[in-house]
């Protein structure tokens, strides 16, 4: 027919025949009752497909020549279009099909089992008829109905469930939807339907969920519910601002609890315990972030900034951290493996990083280190050095050079003592053994030099050492720091029992007096030894008033030392131990006035550092305005401390006065460097 120019007739005949045939079909489908409707539709669709194939084969010639020339729809496509228009869009079928599909989904959601194979065939049909058919006739309504469904369901859940339970349910629903898509929907629907679930179940309720009483985010954190937290993270990550919300709530919680911890006067009584608490707190959050928040960088940063915030709220944090290290290096690390030592030190370094006043830490660290080294109390030389190396990597050479100097002094002193004993060993004989640590002024914390009169026996050997030392090191000056030393004394008591007393140099001076006398008044002791009053009182108190260590007796007996007291050798003294260590009553944690003093010293030390920074900057820039100087100085110094802008201004003014800088004649904000 095509060859005889009847192509047009053939084509229009095809259209009419197929249309009327499909009308019959649609009537028969419509007539199908209830559940059979989908089956009927599916069956007819399969038949139609088969028929269409055959028609296309028969009319192949027309399909190839006539249709492309006249720009008509090809046979197969025509068949599909007619099916769409006549069957699917037949009003009685269209709405019924839609309703049945949605009803099936609803039934499945509520737990019933449906024929997934049939569902897949039908949705496949809709997709074959073109993406717009699938979208308009099914997906659009599917999403709307789902949104309604989840809106209702989430409302119900949030009233009845706690946060953890709710999240579990939401997660299950989400997985169900994904599964549904994989079974019988277009894969492109997955994003759309999960979006609906996330919006309805998470986003609309996220504030309420996070703040839910007794089960919200804070409770999960407190109770360390990693699984729930992880679930919350995963679900919230999908909605906009979800993670921001979690992070903000967590941050303000850390800040609040941290602030409470750091300002709690009870906690501050024991610095070691206090720092341990900080470390535990950090551990806890680290664990939460690694195991529940997938090591999210933004969460780590939030954690770090929170710690930095509250640790610096207390100006004594640097001191306490150093005390913690001191405690660990004195006794805490005994019997601990090398790796564990490193672990503790690394954690301490992490806290150190949070400190703004690193110079204050350095000051205390130096003091504590000095005490450890001089009293030989440090557990491990390796651990000491390891921490110095860490500080060096963190803050650079100048931060640790003095600390390293202290170690060098200790080593040199050992060598010096060996040399001294080698050359003088013979003529010392039975006399007292002397051990001297020669400390470089400047490397060690400055000590007010308080001298006392040493017993003659000691004085002799001290002189020998002085001569020996100055003989090899000419031009140096030695001064004795008697307030820092210790002595071991052999003492024999009333019934002939012998003890070795480990005492301070001051205590030794006092006890030696009792070699020649049984009874001495306070005034006599003070006169002979010339030990500074407060030190002398402390030392007598520890010799006479501490039970079990009272090698002296005091008259009258009382807790405190008065100028009128008299002291006697206590020959009834007994102790189970051969070696008795008599400590001085000394405060570990700095007292308030001492703290003030250290503060002041720190402030003084900062002045030249700030001035040096200003001069460095101005030397490079020649001219700079005030705010920029302040900013640059702060930047240069922040690895050590946070300089106060007012102090910087003061230093600038001092430099102007000393003619390192001048103000610009015109623009008063500007400073000029005077070379």
């Amino acid at each position, binding site marked *: 027919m095509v060859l005889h120019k009847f192509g047009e007739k053939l084509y229009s005949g095809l259209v009419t025949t197929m249309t009327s045939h499909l009308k019959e079909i649609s009537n028969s489908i419509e007539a199908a009752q209830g559940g059979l409707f989908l089956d009927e539709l599916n069956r007819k669709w399969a038949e139609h497909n088969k028929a269409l194939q055959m028609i296309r084969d028969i009319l192949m010639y027309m399909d190839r020549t006539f249709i492309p020339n006249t720009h008509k729809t090809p046979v197969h496509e025509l068949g599909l279009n007619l099916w769409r228009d006549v069957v699917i869009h037949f009003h009685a079928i269209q709405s019924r099909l839609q309703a049945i599909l949605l009803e099936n989904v609803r039934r499945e959601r509520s737990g019933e089992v449906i024929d997934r194979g049939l569902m897949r065939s039908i949705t496949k049909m809709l997709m074959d008829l073109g993406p717009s058919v699938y979208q308009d006739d099914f997906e659009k309504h599917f999403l709307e109905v789902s949104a309604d469904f989840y809106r209702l369901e989430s409302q119900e859940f949030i009233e009845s469930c706690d946060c953890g339970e709710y999240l579990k349910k939401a997660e299950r629903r989400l997985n169900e939807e994904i599964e549904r898509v994989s079974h019988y929907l277009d894969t492109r629907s997955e994003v759309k339907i999960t979006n609906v679930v996330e919006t309805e179940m998470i986003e609309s309720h996220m504030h309420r969920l996070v703040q839910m009483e007794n089960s919200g985010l804070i409770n999960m954190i407190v109770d360390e519910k990693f699984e729930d937290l992880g679930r919350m993270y995963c679900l919230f990550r999908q909605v906009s601002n979800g993670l921001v919300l979690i992070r903000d709530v967590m941050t303000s919680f850390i800040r609040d609890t941290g602030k409470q911890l750091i300002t709690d006067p009870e906690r501050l009584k024991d610095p070691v315990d206090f720092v341990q608490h900080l470390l535990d707190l950090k551990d806890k959050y680290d664990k939460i972030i690694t195991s529940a928040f997938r090591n999210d960088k933004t969460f780590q940063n939030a954690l770090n900034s929170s710690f930095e915030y509250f640790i610096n709220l207390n100006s004594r944090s640097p001191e306490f951290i150093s005390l913690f290290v001191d405690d660990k290096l004195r006794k805490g690390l005994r019997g601990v493996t090398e790796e564990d030592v490193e672990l503790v030190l690394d954690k301490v370094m992490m806290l150190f990083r949070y400190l703004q006043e690193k110079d204050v830490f350095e000051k205390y660290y130096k003091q504590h280190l000095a005490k450890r080294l001089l009293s030989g109390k440090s557990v491990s030389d390796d651990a000491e050095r390891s921490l110095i190396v860490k500080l060096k990597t963190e803050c650079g050479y100048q931060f640790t050079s003095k600390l390293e100097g202290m170690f060098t002094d200790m080593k040199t002193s050992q060598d010096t003592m060996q040399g001294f004993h080698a050359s003088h060993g013979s003529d010392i004989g039975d006399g007292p053994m002397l051990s001297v640590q020669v400390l470089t002024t400047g490397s060690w914390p400055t000590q007010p030099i308080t001298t006392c009169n040493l017993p003659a026996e000691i004085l002799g050997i001290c002189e020998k050492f002085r001569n020996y030392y100055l003989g090899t090191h000419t031009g140096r000056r030695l001064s004795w720091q008697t307030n820092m030393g210790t002595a071991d004394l052999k003492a024999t008591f009333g019934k002939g029992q012998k003890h070795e007393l480990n005492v301070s140099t001051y205590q030794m001076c006092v006890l030696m007096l009792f070699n020649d006398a049984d009874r001495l008044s306070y005034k006599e002791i003070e006169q002979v030894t010339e030990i500074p009053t407060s030190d002398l009182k402390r030392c007598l108190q520890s010799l006479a008033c501490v039970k079990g260590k009272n090698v002296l007796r005091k008259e009258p007996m009382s807790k405190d030392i008065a100028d009128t007291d008299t002291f006697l050798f206590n020959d009834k003294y007994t102790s189970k131990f051969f070696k008795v260590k008599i400590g001085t009553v000394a405060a570990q944690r700095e007292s308030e006035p001492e703290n003030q003093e250290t503060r002041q010293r720190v402030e003084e030390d900062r002045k030249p550092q700030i001035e040096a920074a200003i001069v460095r900057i101005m030397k490079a820039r020649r001219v700079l305005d005030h705010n920029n100087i302040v900013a640059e100085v702060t930047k240069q110094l922040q690895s050590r401390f946070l300089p106060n802008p007012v102090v910087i201004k003061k230093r600038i*003014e001092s430099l102007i006065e000393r003619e390192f800088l001048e103000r610009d004649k015109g623009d008063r*904000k500007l400073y000029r460097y005077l070379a």
Partner: protein
Amino acid sequence: MERIDNLFYSFANRSSGMIDPEGIETLCSDMEVDHTDVRILMLAWKMKAEKQGYFTLEEWRRGLKALRVDTVSKLRKALPELEKEVRRPSNFVDFYSYSFCYCLTEEKQKSIDIESICQLLDLVLGSQFRAQVDYFIEYLKIQSDYKVINLDQWMGFFRFCNEISFPDLSNYDPDLAWPLVLDNFVEWMQAKQS
């Protein structure tokens, strides 16, 4: 010239060859002017006198020549004109800074004690910025951070008087690198006002 020199020698101390504080007092009483009068400081400025309380021959010549006078009475009549000259803004800054340096009597001295500063402020700026000077003096006397004032702070206060609306201080911007003493002064003023 000779008359100027003769006039100099009539006040000068024979042994030091300078007009000393005593000579200045005689000069002042001859001119019937109080020796604490600001115009005497202006005269010193005109002479570019270096040492407080002393005029050298060179300084004397420089001042009197510039004023075109050679007798005490002419000098006295020239004083009002001199004051006018000093009050001209271009000269006044110079005079203001000179008055500070003039009070530095010791070698290497760079600052002046609060007590003297208060008197000097009153003398030099009192007529022009009465309110500012009174408040500032009150502040200086009760504060304890500063025992002395240096040239930078001294010049800063003059700039403050000229630029800052007083007493509301509305255009005071602490970011503009004012000397700290003025920041503190402004803070004190604001606390007082509120």
